């Protein structure tokens, strides 16, 4: 029997690749190995599910059994891969040794750990997958005062979601405005004011140093000398690609697992995509790049090498109190932001030296211009 094409990971990257692959190879043996339960869910929905009143169980759109049936794949759930033997082309797992023909790493990313002092530092939670979301919902039961670390994309989404569901939210971030890596200051200030209008309290230009106390009654000390009371402390300070498995196997890694435009690692039989991958120098932990990668990698695995193409991929920030779409300029772009502020929103355009559009940030009513502006942007990977 031929060893199956094997995917490690059952997030959006793993399962969407499996779906694309099945369209091209209806009968090839396919195996998915995952440390998770293997139910299909959409990670971007985890940070806006409270207002939508969705439980973890409701977010699992398809149970693992349904995925097995639809994909005609073997899915080994709760099975962690401990090592890759590249010479023998075998995965070492808790369920024994599994041979592969081609291997795809769709491992995702870990939440960065905030590195805090204090007796209750270990009580700080993060929400990085469906199981952690279920745990978070249990802890949240009956709690009203939340301290949130991080005012980036996920932090802002959680702040909106928690405040809109009637909770008191304090957000702490070292930056001077929310979404500081994606938005120019005027736009960040607009988002700040909208979230503040919902009741979110920001503590910016400072960081959390320590968490003391006991379950449900924490004292959070900030570097600026303030202290906040919290019943629950949530951290959303950023993502770090999971590199350990690839690195231990001797594959090239940098910020992510290094792959070329074919999504191929330094081992020609091993590929990577999604939040764990660094594609032609870029780590882009968003949905659109995953979909582009899955659509290219499927034909590559099926025998037609297909380089991944990234068009401009605006990122939608799920903050209903202030609809936001942002297409940040590529790293190292030369140019400047031109910001138009109106009563109903912000239109910020990043223009290059020849007045060409290199990026944008649209907030409020201005988000309606996304469809018109996106085609003017340069491709991220042409």
């Amino acid at each position: 029997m031929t060893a199956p094409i094997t995917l490690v990971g059952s997030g959006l990257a793993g399962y969407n690749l499996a779906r694309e692959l099945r369209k091209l190879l209806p009968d090839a043996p396919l195996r998915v190995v995952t440390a998770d339960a293997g139910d299909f869910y959409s990670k971007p929905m985890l940070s806006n599910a409270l207002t939508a009143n969705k439980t973890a169980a409701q977010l699992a759109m398809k149970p693992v059994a349904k995925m097995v049936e639809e994909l005609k794949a073997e899915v080994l759930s709760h099975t962690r891969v401990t090592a890759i033997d590249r010479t023998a082309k075998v995965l070492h797992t808790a369920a024994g040794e599994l041979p592969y023909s081609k291997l795809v790493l769709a491992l995702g990313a870990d939440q960065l750990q905030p590195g805090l002092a204090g007796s209750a530092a270990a009580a700080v939670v993060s929400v990085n997958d469906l199981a952690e979301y279920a745990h978070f919902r249990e802890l949240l039961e009956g709690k009203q005062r939340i301290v949130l670390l991080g005012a980036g994309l996920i932090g802002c989404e959680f702040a909106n979601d928690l405040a809109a569901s009637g909770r008191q939210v304090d957000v702490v971030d070292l930056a001077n405005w929310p979404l500081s890596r994606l938005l120019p200051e005027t736009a960040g200030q607009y988002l700040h004011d909208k979230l503040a209008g919902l009741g979110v309290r920001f503590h910016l230009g400072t960081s959390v140093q320590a968490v003391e106390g006991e379950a449900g009654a924490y004292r959070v000390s900030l570097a600026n000398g303030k202290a906040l009371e919290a019943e629950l402390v949530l951290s959303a300070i950023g993502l770090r690609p999971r590199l350990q498995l690839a690195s231990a196997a001797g594959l090239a890694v940098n910020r992510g697992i290094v792959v070329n435009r074919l999504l191929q690692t330094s081992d020609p039989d091993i590929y990577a995509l999604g939040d764990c991958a660094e594609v032609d120098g870029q780590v882009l932990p968003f949905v659109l790049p995953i979909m582009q990668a899955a659509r290219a990698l499927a034909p590559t695995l099926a025998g037609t090498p297909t380089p991944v193409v990234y068009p401009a991929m605006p990122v939608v920030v799920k903050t209903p109190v202030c609809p936001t779409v942002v297409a940040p300029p590529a790293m190292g772009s030369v140019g400047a932001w031109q910001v138009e502020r109106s009563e109903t929103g912000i239109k910020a355009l990043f223009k290059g030296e020849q007045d060409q559009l290199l990026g944008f940030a649209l907030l409020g009513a201005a988000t309606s211009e996304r469809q018109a502006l996106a085609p003017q942007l340069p491709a991220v990977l042409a």
Partner: protein
Amino acid sequence: MRQFQCIVCGFIYDESVGLPEDGIAAGTAWDAIPEDWSCPDCGVAKADFEMVQIA
């Protein structure tokens, strides 16, 4: 009027609102949207949407 949700990213298409900026007028039935239309948030095809029950 019905709503449909993208199973990949959570985007909701509301027939009563349409997507005017995408050239789809308010009141456009889901069935009237072309098959080659894709989710504005994540790019998945129309076939990958699922109907969501509204209250």
